[in-house]
């Protein structure tokens, strides 16, 4: 299992275009990936679950379990912390 804490970058939080691009990236990994925010834990490959989960500047944790877990958390944490997508 790998996990990393990161800060949400896009101006309006996780939604719309950034959310769609995040999902696309997440689906490239075979690992199970979840986003943890506070006591909520959601499937990181579900746009419906991640949409509206966090706002810009809020802390979230990306956790993955599987063969490419390390790579998944690294790529996805970086993606979600970027200002724009």
């Amino acid at each position, binding site marked *: 299992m790998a996990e990393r804490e990161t800060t949400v970058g896009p101006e309006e939080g996780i939604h719309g275009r950034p959310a*769609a691009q995040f999902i696309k990236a997440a689906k490239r990994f075979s690992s199970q990936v979840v986003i943890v925010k506070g006591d909520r834990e959601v*499937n990181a490959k*579900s746009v*419906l679950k991640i*949409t*509206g989960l966090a706002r810009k500047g809020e802390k979230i944790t990306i956790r993955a379990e599987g063969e490419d877990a390390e790579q998944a958390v690294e790529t996805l944490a970086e993606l979600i912390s970027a200002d*724009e997508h």
Partner: protein
Amino acid sequence: MKLTGIGASEGVAVGPAFVPASGRPEPERDRITEGEVEAELQRFSDAVETVAGRLSETGESLRASGSEDEAGIFEFHVEMAEDPELASAVEVRIRNLESPEAAVLAVGEEYAAEFAAMDEYMAARADDVRDVAGQISAQLMGRGGSGLETLEIPSVVLARSLAPSDTARIKAGMALGFVTVEGSRTSHVSIMARSMGIPAVVGVGPALEEVMAAKKIALDGGEGSVFTDPDQDTVSRFERMSTELAQEGAVLDEFRHVEAITSEGRHIEVAANLGSASEAEDALEWGAEGVGLFRTEFLFMQRDDLPSEDEQYEAYSAVARAFGEKPVIIRTLDVGGDKDLPGVDQANEENPFLGWRGIRMSLDTPDLFEPQLRAILRAAATGNIKVMFPMVADVEELEAAKAILRECRRELESEGKESGEVEIGVMIETPAAAICAAELAKESAFFSIGTNDLIQYTLAADRGNERLRRLQNADHPAVLALIRQTCEAADAAGIPVGVCGEAAGEPEMIPKLIALGVTELSMGAPSIPRAKKVVSEL
């Protein structure tokens, strides 16, 4: 009754009114039997695949036509349609003998309610998820949710608003026009209408909701007027206008391939603005005598890395070959903080249009600029290519860019690679460039005035801001003064001046531009025949 809104897409239409059913489709069955479960699960996943495929096709075609933001919405909708959590929630319900068409609506509604309870922004996403769930449900029932897909009589569509997925579902030829309560010139429906060549009036306001029961509608998308249940006189007038517009189209066709020469014998070159290499053939068919502005941004967008020199060479030389002897002016990359560029560290800017963009970014980023210049020089061996630099504010920038271009040519020579001669021009789009035109002219082979940005920067009026439409005007005395100054400086130096903003294609601006000394007009290709006709009648 006459209503007024925003004229969002030119043209007139008169025809029966059609109001798409709003809200969600009604499921045909609520329950299924035990024996149907497996087959219904399969039907659900097929429906998801069909809907997602259709959404992503629409997204692709919007992207190809340059509507990035709209394409992004479809990308989001595709992900929602294919959402694994949506699928598993629906599966649970189907296994509990709920019909898939009812199940997907119910699950969509659960998410919509969740979103609606968040904030205003997320409330709007509730409509997105309802829309997508509705489409899957409609697909399962083999029919359209709103009736737009099954529209069989050419009609004027009246609605509160129209989503891109709505307009994309209408069969070709069935929409005569769009009239909406909400919207601006830049909303989805307006962009779609213009790209489909269908007249539209948007932002009519609540008054339109009072007349949704109208049987017949006439609209003028140029002036933004809408007549509900028009009398016979109005109907005849609109039918006449519509015929005249069609005839004008036929007359204009005859101007496609003539040279535009004024009565004084001045030849005005009428060229096309291209947003991608694939538009070249089309532009030639409209009668383009060259390319006055070849935007290169399309090569750099929507990817994870910068395009290679070879890839750029292919795109530039394809256009150069298509145009043969005719000139093709390639503008080096003009993006700023408003667009994402792979591999370039762009800071988050408060004012991207006043920021690090165009030649400013190119000069600071050799990894970006040099491959582009090398590709342009190599492509110049295959046709009549010129290069121009965007966002130039002073002579130092032009000299720096020219020095890099010379260096690239030397490199190519020492590598034994073929390159061609290119004339070097400056885009006049900052007021500073217009004011310094005399100095710039000494170092340039031509000028090209980008009126859209010149207006925006001169009048300090954001070109995307609907409230500032009065100021988005090339006919403003301040803008005309800068154009005059540019033309006079060019004339003194003996170099030509083109215009490649929207003003170049506007019939009322063309005579003024020519009087000021402009000798080349470059525009969206469909405007070329009309521009040639206007010039020929001067």
